[in-house]
């Protein structure tokens, strides 16, 4: 028994949507960043799977996934640094309580 690209695409879509749900509903800044990582992983899985099934010899999907990993690593590093700076200034990372700009 074998699986085709559709199974990988469905799995990647589910992973992305679970991450999206968490990123939109969580109230803690760290939890939102964790859910963003889940979404990135869904995208990478899709890229690698399609690359494997459609054009395995050019490796284009794998290179794109590798560069997405670089950007995601930069994003999580900067995001967590921002969370720490925010915590030092306001003593909270609850997104509900960061409402200074609210009119």
């Amino acid at each position, binding site marked *: 028994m074998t*699986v085709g690209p*559709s199974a990988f*695409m469905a799995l990647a879509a589910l992973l992305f949507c679970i991450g999206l749900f968490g990123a939109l509903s969580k109230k*803690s800044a760290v939890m939102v960043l964790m859910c963003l990582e889940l979404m990135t992983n869904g995208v990478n899985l899709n890229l690698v799977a399609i690359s494997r099934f459609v054009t395995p010899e050019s490796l284009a999907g794998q290179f794109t996934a590798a560069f997405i990993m670089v950007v995601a690593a930069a994003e999580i590093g900067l995001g967590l640094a921002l969370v720490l700076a925010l915590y030092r200034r306001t003593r909270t990372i609850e997104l509900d309580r960061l409402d200074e700009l609210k009119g």
Partner: protein
Amino acid sequence: MPESIAAIPFIILAAATLLGAAMVVLTRNVVHAAFWVLEVMMAVAGLFMLLSAGFLALVQVMVYAGAVTVLLIFTVMLTLRDREDAIRSRDLSWAAGGIALATLVAAGTAIVSFAPPIPKLPAVTPGVAEFGRLLFSGWALPFEIASVILLIALVGAVWWSGGER
């Protein structure tokens, strides 16, 4: 190199991925959520191995399972004042669920309408050596840009998280 992808390892790894992702969203403890993220990363690395992307699986384990999870756990620990702060309310909102469900339906429709036949996979896929050769020839410019991005992110992270000046 296998000419097809066996269903049983795929189902095990897919179940591990989805279980971990669901637990990240559903668990009430932030520290547990960080460890479930680690589990998802390892399962996705296994899926990369299944897709014969060995180098990406290695990078996934080093960067995500290694560095990112450690960073997440450090930040969780640094921003909690006591042990009870790790337990949170579940924070699930209907609007977010609606948006995620709509995205899932859109993606599902796209997958069903795309519906490629299961192709006969080529027996030989390029290995790590070919990956490295291509990375430093055709993909050299994106590689250099990526290194600049990482440098800027490093400096920015130090600048933002550094002490008061």
